[in-house]
């Protein structure tokens, strides 16, 4: 369960996220759509406790990320946009480190690491050094880290970015499968993914929600019945953004 309440973030005079509110219930996969610079990553960084909001709050399973950060962070699995990793470790070494961070020990730790490696198809590179991995494998290693402790809430920032079509398909299936029991928030600017894996989607532009609904509802809002057209009607061009 993610409850976002009037979340706002400004960098100097510029609002990256402006009074955003939404909830994601268990069993729901919320697609977070919007053009580049809309404030998707900033929102996710606030929900995961990496940056402090200018105002507003986010609750994860009832725990406020501001007042009870450790309880909230415990419930979250997070895949950052750039899929950062420690390049000097092996895949298994990195996952074991993350398991330690999550307080997993002994058999539970061993099983969690094996399960994450299986789920993300990493067994062929398990003992390889991370700096020798190709981009798709790096991304999946970071995803494995997010799934390790079987969190109730998953926050994935552009999880299919930089993957080949097969890998994209696998990740979408994975999101759909995990979404049956978890609350998932994932951002994307690929509209096909909404149909492929979301139960609901919001479109954000310049830090504000401009549309919210199931994929079918959103398509109805568009004059032509296509998500692409709705997206283009509601959001501003990057170039217009710069001059505004």
């Amino acid at each position, binding site marked *: 369960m993610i409850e976002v309440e009037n979340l706002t973030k400004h960098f100097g005079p510029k609002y990256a996220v402006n009074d955003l509110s939404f909830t994601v219930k268990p069993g729901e996969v919320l697609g977070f759509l919007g053009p580049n610079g809309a404030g998707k990553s900033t929102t996710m960084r606030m929900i995961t406790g990496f*940056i402090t909001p200018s105002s507003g709050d986010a609750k994860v399973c009832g725990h406020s990320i501001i007042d009870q950060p450790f309880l909230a962070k415990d419930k979250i699995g997070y895949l*950052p946009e750039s899929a*950062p990793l*420690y390049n*000097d*470790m092996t895949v298994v070494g990195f996952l074991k480190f993350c398991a330690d*961070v999550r307080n997993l020990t002994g058999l539970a730790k061993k099983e969690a690491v094996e399960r994450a490696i299986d789920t993300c198809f990493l067994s062929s590179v398990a003992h390889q050094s991370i700096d020798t991995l190709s981009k798709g494998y790096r991304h999946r290693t970071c995803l494995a880290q997010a799934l390790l402790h079987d969190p109730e809430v998953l926050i994935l920032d552009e999880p299919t970015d930089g993957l080949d079509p097969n890998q994209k398909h696998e990740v979408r299936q994975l999101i759909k499968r995990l979404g049956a029991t978890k609350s998932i928030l994932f951002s994307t600017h690929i509209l096909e993914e909404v149909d492929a894996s979301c139960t609901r989607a919001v479109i954000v532009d310049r830090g504000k929600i401009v549309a919210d609904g199931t994929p079918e509802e959103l398509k109805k809002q568009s004059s032509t019945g296509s998500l692409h057209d709705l997206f283009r009607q509601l959001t501003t061009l990057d170039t217009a953004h710069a001059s505004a």
Partner: protein
Amino acid sequence: MKHIWTILKRELVSYFTQPTAYAIILIFLLISLTFNFTFGSFILAGDANLEWSFLFWHPWLYMLLAPAVGMRLWSDEQRNGTLELLGTFPIPPWSTILGKYLAAALVWLIALVLTFPIIITVNYLGEPDNGRIFSGYLGSYLTCCVFLAITMLVSACTRDQVVCLIVSVAICTLMVLCGYEAFIRELARFRFDFLVEALTALGVWDHFRSLTRGLFRYQDMVWFFSIIFTCLFGTSAILSAKRA
């Protein structure tokens, strides 16, 4: 507590899977032992307590080599984006800071322990005061820890390791030079008594030399530990300011 160990272990893995730590330890051992037998004229002077021939060179080496060990601590995390992982893990920022600091300090402890052949040598050749040698080593190690803490503070400010190295070396060099006897004596000739006292108290030599002479003074411990803790608090402040 457990998290400090988790972080410390990871840092040690990355120090010792890359050539950095080995190279720095090796350079330290080679130079300090070479100086001992050449410029230190260890044999001629019959300096069984290692005060002038061996320990005297340590601050000069640390001011260049300690920043090389510490420079990656936070700069690397910021450059790779792994700071975002650390910031969203359910661990207190203090555990991370202490874990990283202790890892760097441990690398130097290993380097210092590896100079043990020189202690065996003096005990074989003469009759040193081993308590005084221990006190000298303590002074040497604390000096190194002060330089590491300064480097850690600088590395929190920049994502560039080279900038961090240059700035930290500059600060440490100033601390070594400003209390150096030749320089202080020059100042004393001009009757800048206040300045003389201030620089002596600020520089490393007064505190370092009293320990190598086997004196245990309260004010020296205050000097070493207040700088270390100020730098650690500063690191914590800078990192949380970056997240706001």
